[in-house]
């Protein structure tokens, strides 16, 4: 009787493990697919092509994850998917930082440009003041 009970328990454990494995596989598959879908968003975000290499790497890792998934190497798939998630986050942050850098460059450029305009305007002002003085002298 005890033997039967132990056998039933083992069966139940086995069935439970199988169910858990199936659930994880499904979860991993969903994550891979959502990451694939997110790649095009990332590419669209990267309008200045600042993280092209990183995106290529992400794509290759997603392919790798899928290969591992086919081989039902769940642990390996999980590890690659985690890396893909981290890489996607990195790409987003890099794009955001790059855009902020571009914005900063733009603002600094605007400052430089305005300073140049100030210099030119100051020179024009000096010239105009000379002209004005000459005209005033003439009119006296």
């Amino acid at each position: 009787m005890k033997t039967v009970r132990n056998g039933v328990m083992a069966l139940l454990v086995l069935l439970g493990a199988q169910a858990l494995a199936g659930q994880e596989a499904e979860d991993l598959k969903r994550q891979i697919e959502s990451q694939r879908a997110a790649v095009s968003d990332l590419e669209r975000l990267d309008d200045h092509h600042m993280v092209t290499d990183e995106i290529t790497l992400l794509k290759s890792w997603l392919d790798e994850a899928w290969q591992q998934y086919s081989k039902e190497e769940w642990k390996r798939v999980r590890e690659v998917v985690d890396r893909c998630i981290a890489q996607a986050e990195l790409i987003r942050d890099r794009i955001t930082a790059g855009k902020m850098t571009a914005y900063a460059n733009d603002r600094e450029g605007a400052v430089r440009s305005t300073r140049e305009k100030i210099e030119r305007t100051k020179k024009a002002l000096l010239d105009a003041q000379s002209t004005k003085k000459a005209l005033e002298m003439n009119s006296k």
Partner: protein
Amino acid sequence: MSARKLLFAAILVAGCATPPKPNELDAFEKLKQSPNYQAAQRKAPELVSESERLFGKSNEEWQSNDLDLSRRDALMGSIKLKTALALVEYDQSKARADKAQAELRIVDDEYGRVNKDLMATQEQIALLQKLKETSSQAAMQQEKMQREMATREAAGQARDKIAAAELALKGAEQVNAAEFAKVEYQAAQDTLARARAQLDAKDYAMASQNADAARDQAARAMQTAKPTYEKSASTTASQARNEALARDLAGIPGAQVRLERRGDMQRAAVPLRGLFARKSTVIQPGSEGMLDALAAVLKKYPTYSVLVVGYTDNRGRRDELLARSQAQATAVYSALVGRGVEAKRMVVSGNGADEPVSDNRTTAGRALNNRVEVIFLYQ
């Protein structure tokens, strides 16, 4: 035996030696040298500590020759650290952008001020230039007005001079210069015509000059023509006066006027008959009417010299006849003076029987020869 030992030792050394470091771990180590590493630690401590943990683990795995695991952990650690560095880069860029934005506001303000100054100065320049232009235009306008005034004045002067020349020409015409000073008059007319044409052509200087010349020519023409004209006019007037005198004399009752020329002198003789009885030198009554009419004519023409000459027939001695004719002429002279005729105009003489006008052999002839003639003399 020793060779076998050596081979064994070599295999043992090779087996215990550290494998080559994975590229991923190498790259991870280099990433850790980033100058922003400390900033990343402050910004994202969790990410950096996780990357540190993975770095240590990767190193251990490398040391224990588990290269695949070492590579994978180095990759993951690198991603974490790169993410932390990206966050730092974002912050730094944001700080730069904020600073630049703040600076931009300041420089924009400065630019605004400088540009405003420039615009104001340019506006002032434009006003000064406009003022200069206006002054210049005003000066030009004034100059133009002065020129116009000068032109108008010159035109006025030319017109005045032409008018003066026309007046002079009129004066010349009054003395009939067209006839008596043909050359000068024609020259004046031509010159005046030229002056008029020049006035129309607005050549006022030449018009003035020619008008002056025309006036002078007209004056010369007048000067030349005047004596001739005056002489001619005088002759004409004298003739008219003489004719009038003859008409008035013919109007005296009982008078028969005789016009004749002797040398340069013209004579209008009025024979008075029947004034005296035979051989008398006293005027008979009843002759007053004739004498009154004669005296009136004499007074009407006061410039004529007059001869009062007595004549007789030829009966008697010559000296006696001369005396009687003289006395009769004097009686008429006195009667005329008595009637207001100026005495000194008249010359009295007695010619006796000289210059008979009829036959002394007949009574009627002798009656005609006995007479006193009042003779008006003129040229």
